[in-house]
């Protein structure tokens, strides 16, 4: 009687009975979706499809500007997008100025209900066919974000794994733990191109666009961002943690 089995014999025996169910799933190529910002695409290679990407940073660090750029790029390239807006902060007038095609955007307003936001994201991911799903937790306090149980993130990661969907999470603090394939930390802040240096000097009126066009034209603010790649798993190994400054996005 044979007392010991080699590993290869065991594996072949299992494979003959159960197929390749124990074989690790290997990803050969990673398809990406551009963020719409050349500097970030150069740095990261784009947003990996079938994975979670996370952008976190404090308020006014450029998370929403980046989200608009992503949505504008994706909708312009015929991707069907969904935005799960946890705190109902999406501003359509500003978003239209960013070039987002609303006909390709499904906006889900959750009125501050975190549980609804996660259930809505889960429904959207299971529906399939969405190119970009954004879960906006930008106004969720850090202590609440840290309380989100890990099983949600594992569930999301598992759901998008075999789909060409990019799930992007926007938050104030990193909360997806190890489930995100790409984590970007935003550290920038908007700068003033012109301000009232002297209080007696009044700035001119905002230039109003035609009514159907968005009203907001913040001509006195200039975007100036710094983005740090905190973690990046499935992409090229030569992309190291780095920091850069990207003006005017």
């Amino acid at each position: 009687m044979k007392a010991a089995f080699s590993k290869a014999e065991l594996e072949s025996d299992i494979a003959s009975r159960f197929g390749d169910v124990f074989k690790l799933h290997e990803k050969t190529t990673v398809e990406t979706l551009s963020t719409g910002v050349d500097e970030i695409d150069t740095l990261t290679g784009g947003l990996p499809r079938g994975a979670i990407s996370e952008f976190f940073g404090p308020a006014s660090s450029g998370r929403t500007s980046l989200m608009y750029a992503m949505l504008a790029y994706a909708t312009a390239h015929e991707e069907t997008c969904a935005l799960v807006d946890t705190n109902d902060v999406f501003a359509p007038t500003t978003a239209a100025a960013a070039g987002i095609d609303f006909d390709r955007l499904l906006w889900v307003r959750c009125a501050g209900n975190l549980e609804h936001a996660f259930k809505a994201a889960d429904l959207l991911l299971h529906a399939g066919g969405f190119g970009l799903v954004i879960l906006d937790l930008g106004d969720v306090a850090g202590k609440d974000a840290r309380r989100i149980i890990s099983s949600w993130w594992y569930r999301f990661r598992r759901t998008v794994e075999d789909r060409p969907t990019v799930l992007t999470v926007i938050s104030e603090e990193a909360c997806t733990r190890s489930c995100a394939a790409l984590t970007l930390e935003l550290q920038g802040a908007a700068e003033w191109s012109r301000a009232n240096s002297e209080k007696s000097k009044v700035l001119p009126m905002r230039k109003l666009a035609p009514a159907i066009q968005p009203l907001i034209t913040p001509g006195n603010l200039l975007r100036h961002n710094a983005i740090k790649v905190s973690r990046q798993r499935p992409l090229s190994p030569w992309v190291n943690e780095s920091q850069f400054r990207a003006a005017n996005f």
Partner: protein
Amino acid sequence: MFACIFAPQLPADLSLPEFAYGFSPLVEEVRTGTVVIDVDGCELLFGSPYQLAREVSERAKKSRTEGGLESSVSVAIAANPDAAVHAASNLQGITFVLPGEELTCTGEFPVDALDYSLINLEKKVVNEILETLRLWGVRSFAEFASLPVAGVSERLGQSGIKLQQLAAGKTERHLKVKQPAPVFAHSLELEHAITELEPLSFIFARLLHQLCAALNAYALATNEVCASLQLEGQTTHERKLSLPYPMRDHKVLLKLLLLDAEMHPPQAAVKSVSIACEPVKPRVLQNGLFVPLAPAPDKLELTLARLAKLVGEENIGSPTLLDTHRPDAFSMKRFTLVTNPARRKRRQIGSRQLAIGNQKCLGFRMFRSPLRAIVQADQGWPTQVSAWGKQRSVYGKVVNVAGPWRTTGDWWRDDRWARDEWDVTLERSGQQTLYRIYRELKSENWFVEGNYD
């Protein structure tokens, strides 16, 4: 053999085809008041064709409650349907035309009585032929039928040949059988009233299965399903599902109907259920090879219905800007996929150009509703802002400021708006954040509208 029933004095509320279905399922409605039925195989029910004609004539005289027409009809039986039509139209009572002897009966009819619509000829062509026949001295069916075929063909063409065959009762055609209109509505009366949704789902499933089977049989789909529930207390609960794409999958329709019933439950026990749908042609779509994947329409509809149940119907959809300068003016519309390739391409080009032109757009997070703020000001300039809400709080020292920008509008309405906007940088614990604050001119209250991000 064919029987033609001619009823010129038919009351408007009676249907001659319905009457004819009582004798044969193969019925052609030639025109209003004239039908042709195929009586082959009816011998066991009605006896000889002549007995059938008598039965038709007698039943037509009966009252409508007994299935009659309350009027006398002319009936003609012939081996040729067109000969039967001519005989019934021109002779009153019952006429029996022996096979091969059509001209014995119809030969004396004037050529003007030829019903050219039976052979799909144009009136102008027929008038020319009839004028020619009049010049030749041809007056009756028999005289026209006796003309040599070759000569008619040379002088009058194929239309003349067809007209001559019609006069001779020798046309060859099949009956254009009138199909009864399909009904896409089913209802079920319940022995015991239902008070819960779960047993109601089984009723829905059964009715929808029947409806979808009927739609499938006619190669149709539906884009509107109406469910009508008769409730206790003689009230009716009606719900209408409007689908953006035609579909006929009973499982999807059942889920949509159940989700709708959960969101809008009936207010009393259900006594009977009726479901009707609007039949439309199914959607045929050829996607491009390089078009990105989009959600399947049925799955998308289910997802939207589930999301509507979760967050409310008014909270999902696509935003649409309103034609106004009012801040944060938008409306929500139903989310549907763009499927028209030309429209898609046009939108794509337009939005791409827009995206390129607006890459410098600064993101803005709108606080809904705006935070009521306490603002300390120095000679009208904000120096300190404090605002607390349920979800967020904003406070800090103003380190940079731009403004004010005064915007007003809709002064002729009760909900007019007028305000001074400021962009401010607030510093709190070393962290600087950009906000937009405004002062309502009417109430002179300060609000934080949102932050730039």
